[in-house]
C-alpha cells in the first residue's frame, strides 16, 4: 500500500499530504514536489487535441531507490500522487488505478461540500479516513 498520498492544487501547491513514517515527512514533500516536473511533462506531452479523452492516470512517474511514485491528474488539473514502497512488488498497476479512482471520488465529495473553499487545504475527516485506509499501516 501507499506510504504517502498527496493532493496537489492546479497551481502546484499541496492541498493535502500525508505520509506514513511521520518523522520524515519532509522527505516525502521533496519526493512529491519533484514528481510534479514529471506530471507537468506528461500532461504537456499528451497534447491539446487529446485533452478531452486523456487518460487521467499517468502511471509510474519515476522510481527511486526506495519508492515508486505514481501520478493521476483530474480534468481540472488537480494532481494526485501516490508514493509506494519499491519493495512491495505485489502492488499491481490495476490496484494503483483503483486507489486513484477511490481518491478521486473522495476528492469529488470534498469539493461538493458547500463549506469547502476550493484552494484551501483539505481537512475533511471522511477524506482523511479514506486515505488512512489506503496507507500502509505503520508497524
Amino acid at each position, binding site marked *: 500500500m501507499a506510504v504517502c498520498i498527496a493532493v496537489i492544487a492546479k497551481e502546484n*501547491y499541496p492541498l493535502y499530504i500525508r505520509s506514513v513514517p511521520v518523522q520524515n515527512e*519532509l522527505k516525502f*514533500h*521533496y519526493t512529491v*514536489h519533484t514528481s510534479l*516536473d*514529471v506530471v507537468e511533462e*506528461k500532461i504537456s*506531452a499528451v497534447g491539446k487535441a487529446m485533452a478531452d479523452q486523456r487518460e487521467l492516470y499517468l502511471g509510474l512517474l519515476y522510481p527511486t531507490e526506495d519508492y515508486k511514485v505514481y501520478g493521476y491528474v483530474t480534468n481540472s488539473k488537480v494532481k494526485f500522487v501516490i508514493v509506494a514502497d519499491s519493495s512491495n512488488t505485489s502492488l499491481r498497476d490495476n490496484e494503483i488505478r483503483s486507489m486513484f479512482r477511490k481518491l478521486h471520488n473522495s476528492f469529488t465529495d470534498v469539493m461538493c461540500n458547500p463549506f469547502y473553499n476550493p484552494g484551501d487545504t483539505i481537512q475533511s475527516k471522511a477524506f482523511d479516513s479514506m486515505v488512512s485506509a489506503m496507507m500502509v499501516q505503520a508497524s
Partner: protein
Amino acid sequence: MSIPDYMQCAEDHQTVLVVVQPVGIVPEDEFFRIYKRITSVAQVSIRDSQRNLYIRYRHHYLPENNEWGDFQTHRKVVGLISVTTCGSAKEWPQTSDRFHCQKDVFGATLYDSRLLVFGLQGEIAEQQRTDVAFYPSYDDCPDVEKRVEDFVESIFIVLESKRLDRATDKSGDKIPLLCVPFEKKDFVGLDTDSRHYKKRCQGRMRKHVGDLCLQAGMLQDALVHYHMAVELLRSVNDFLWLGAALEGLCSASVIFHYPGGTAGKASGREPSLAHGALTANGISADTSSEIGRAKNCLGPEDIIEKYKEAISYYGKYKNAGVIELEACVKAVRVLAIQKRAMEASEFLQNAVYINLGQLSEEEKIQRYSILSELYHLIGFHRKSAFFKRVAAMQCVAPTIPEPGWRACYKLLLETLSGYSLCLDPKDFSKGSHRGWAAVQVRLLHELVYASRRMGNPGLSVRHLSFLLQTMLDLLSDQEKKEVTQSLENYTSKCPGGMEVLTLPDGLKLPPVPLSKLPIVRSVKLLDLPVSLRPHKQKGLLENNMSSKSPFIYSPIIMHTRGEERTKKIEFRWVQGDVCEVQLMVYNPMPFELRVEHMGLLTSGVEFEALPAALSLPAESGLYPVTLVGVPRTAGNINISGYHTSVFGVTSDCLLDGLPSVRTSGCVVEVIPSLPRLQLSTSLPRSAHPLRPSKEELSSSVSVQLFNGETQQLTITLENIGSEDLETLEVTSKTCNTKEKLFGEFLSWDLEEAVSQLPLKPGQSVTLTVNVKVRLDFSGGENLLQDLNDDGISVTGLPISSPLRQVLKPRAETKPLGSESSKTDYNHVKTLEAVMTFKYSGGAGKMEGYYRDLSLGVHVDVEPSVFFTRVSTLPATRTRQCHLLLDVFNSTEHELMVSANNNQDLVLHPSECQRMAIQVAKFDFHTLPQPDQEAVRYTNPKLLEEERLHAQASMISSTLGITWNIISFDGEASVEGVLNQLVLEHLQLAPLQWDVVVNGKPCDCDIIADCKVGDAVPLEVKLTNRSKNAVGPFALTVVPFQDYQNGVQNYDLQDAVTFIGSNTFYIDMVKPTENSACMGALLFLYTGDFYLNIKFQDDSAGQGKELPPSWFGLPSVHIKALEAPIEAGA
C-alpha cells in the same frame, strides 16, 4: 579513469584534444589570457581538403584519462601547447628541459607540441626551432592565433596520415588489439590466432578508424566504419567496444542532425557553422554520397535507442562507469535538444545510480550540480532545484573539514526559482500564499542558517523577516516562537532595516517590511478636537467648485477604483497642531508583541512623526492605536504608510502595498497655522455634558442659581498657540429651552477684551459674562381660572372710590392644596446655552480660516418666587391702576420682595402674600414699531408674540420687582404672569379723555381750586389713538356732592350753575386727531364738588361697539373757595 567530464557532449567526439599548460612560473592571469586566445582557435578549416578540424582545449588533463585514448580518440591528448616565462637566454636551457619533461607525460599519444616563451630579452643562441615561439611579453604576441592554427594544421597532417594508415585495409598485416587499461591483463595468454580474436581486433580497429575519420572531418566515412565495427563487435560479444562503436555512431549522427551542437551554450563554435559543416562535408560532392550518408546516419529515434543500448553495454563493466555516465550526459543533451524530457529524465535517473566508487566531496558536489543543470536543461525545474539543494548541503557536509558556507548559500539561492520562491515580498502581498509551503519554509530556514554561518547576519535577518512576513500563516505557534527568537538574536548583532541588500554576485534582496506584525486592518485619519478644528470663513471666495464635470449634477459618478485611497478628506489639519491617525491593528502571534517606534510615513508636507511604542497581547483582537504627528508646513499631506520596529527589524509599510487595509482616504489638507486658545472660567466645570450633544463642546460650566438671580462668569482666554490672536468674536445661543426665558440670558461686553488684541502667545484676556436667569415666575396653569372666579376682574367702568373693601376677604396665607402641587413649584429647571468664541490669527487668517471655541453654560434654576395670581384694580386716577400680585416664596429661606416705590414684603418659606403695586398705565404706542420690512416677512403670530413680549418687558422693567434671600438677590419678572386681560387693563385706552378745569388738567385725586363766583372754564378733550374714527359723542356733566358717608347729593341746581350748556358735543374724531369742547361752571357756594361726566344715551349705541374701558373719564373734584374779600369789594 575515475573523474567524469560532465561537460562532454556528443560533438566532442569529432574534436582533437589539445592540452595547454604553463611551464615553470607563469602568472595565472597571464596564462589564462593566453589560454583564452588559444582557445579562440576552436575550428580550423584545412586548406585543400574542405574539411574542418575541431579542437578541444584543456588546461588540465589527467594522464590516467589519456590511457583511454585508444578507446575513444577524442580522449587522447594529441597536442600540447606549453606556455612559459623565460627572462633571459641563461634560463632557456632549463625551460627547454622542463618543456620536454612535460611532453613526456603525454608523450605516447602526442602528435605535435608547441612552446610559447614570453618575456625573453635578447637572442637565443640556439638555432630556430619550429615548435618554439618567442614573444617579448604577454602583451606583445600578435601572432599567437596564427601559430596555433599552424599547429593545428600540423596535427591534422599527422591525424590524416594515421587515418589513412589505419583505414587502408592491409589484410595481410596483423591487426593489433586495441584495449582499454583495465582489459590489458584479461588478454594475457589468449590465443591470438583464433578467428574470434581476429574479429575482435578488426572490430576494435574499425571503431578506432571511425573515430579518426570523425575527428578528421569525414563524417560519411566515420559512419561507415562505425557500422562495420558494430557488426564485427556484435558477433564477438565484445560489449564494451560495441558500446563505444554504437556511441560513435550516435555521435556522428548527432553531429549530422544537430550541427548547432548539443551543449546548449555556444562552445566556441562559429555561428556560420551549419553552413561551414555542409560545405566541409562536401555538398559539392556527388549526391550519391549524400544519399549514402543519409542511409548510414541514424534517425533521431534511433540515436536514442542506440545510446540506450550503448549505455546498457557500458553498464556491464564496473570500470567503465565514467564512460557510462558521460554517455548518459551526452544522451540527455541530445534529448534536451529533441525536447523529449521524459526519456531524458530516465537517462538522468540512470545516471544518478551509476556508482563511481568512492567519490570525494568535491566530486559529489560537482555531480549534483551537473545533475541539477541537466534537469534544468530538460525543464524539470523542481528536480533541478532538488539536486542543487543537495549539492548545497554537500558543500557543508559534516565530513568536510572546512564547510563552504558561501558556496552553499550561493547554490541555495539558485534553487529559489525551482521552489517558485521570489525574495521580493511584494509578490506575496497579492492574495494568500501559493506554493509548496513546507519546502519553501525549509529552504528559507537553510538560507538563514547558511547566511549566518557565512558571517552575514544582515542576510539572515532579511531572510528571517521574509520568512515571517510571507509564511506567517503557515507556521505553527512553536515555529513562530522560534523564528522570532532567532530573529531577535540576529538583530541584536545587526538590526534589520529597509535598505536593499546586494549580494556580491549582483542579486538584490529587496527590503521586507513586516506588515503582518502587527496586522493593520484599517487606517483612519482623525479630525482635530472640536475646539481646534479650523473653519473656513464663509463668503471668502469659496472656489471649491471641485467637480470637473461641466454639469451641475450628473447621476453618472466617475468612479475609479483606488480613488478611495487618494480621496481627500472633508476635514482639515492645521500646521503646527498635533494630528492623529487611528489604526486598527491586531497581533497574529501567540505571544505578546512589542512594537516600537511606530510612526507615520507621509509625503507632501513636512511632517514630524511622534513615534509610539505599544505592546499587543497575544492573539489580540482589533486594537486601536493612535499615531500622532505634527505637520510643519501647509499643503496636502498624504499618509502613505507607517513605520514600525519589531524584533529589531525596522520596516516601512506602505499602504499601497497593503490592499487589505481599509481606509477612508489618506490625503488631507493642512492649512497654515492658527492661534490656539485655552479657556478657563471662574465657575466649576460641568460634570454632565449638555443634553443636546449634537454639537461637541470644548468645555462647559455649570452653576446653580435662583430664578431671577444674576451671576458673573469670568472667562479667561489664554493664547497657548504660537500665533498671535488677531480677531475674536463671541456669540451665544440658548439651546433647548422648553422654559420661557425672559430677558437676556448671557450678556457681556467685548470691547475691553478686543482692545487687548492682538494677543501674543502666552498672554491671556478676560471676559466677564453676566448670567441672568429670569424664567417664568408664574405659578402655573391654573392661574387664569383663579383670577376669573375671583370675581374681582375689573369691568373698566369708572369706579370713583377705591374698592378695596369690596374685595372678598382673602386668607393672607393660603395653604397650598396638596403636596404634589408643592413639588411642582419646587421643580428645578435647567437652562443651557452655548457661547462660541470665534478667533483667528496668523497665516491661517490670511487664508480665511478661524477656529471655534465653545463653552457650554449649564444653569440649574431653582425657583425663587412665584406670582401665583395677578389681577388689576383701577386706581383712583384714570391713568393709573393697581397691580395685585400673589407672591409665593418657594424657597426654604426667608425672602424679601420689593418693588419700585413700594414697601418691602417679607415672606417666610412657602408663604404666599398679596402685593399691590400702583402703576401708571402704559402707553404701548410709544414702543418702537417693528419696521415694515420685517413685518412683511414674519409670521403674524410671531409678530404678535413679539409685541406682547415687548409690552411685558416694559411693564416688568417699570415694576422692578426684586427679591432678596439673605445674601442673594435677584429680580422677578411678571412677564409670564400677565395675560391678555390684565394687559388690557394696564394699557391706556386709545381714547384719551382729558378734563381741564381752570386751565389745569384734572384727575380723580387732584382737587381743582376755584373761587366762588368766578366762572370756571371746563374743557373736555378727546384724543383718538385708535385706528378708527369715533364719535360723535354727547357728554353731560353732572355735578354732585359726596358726603363721604355713602350719601351723594345730586340736587345742586342752586349751588352750581352752568354757563352755557351742561352737555358737550364732540364730533367725529378721526384717528390721531383730537377734539375739544369748552364749557364753564360757576360755583355759587363754597364746598367740595364732584363732576360726573356721563355719556348721554344717544351715543351709547356708538359706545357699545367699543370696549367700556375706552370711556374712562376722570371724575373731577373741585373745591370752591371763598372769594377774597378785597376782590369781592
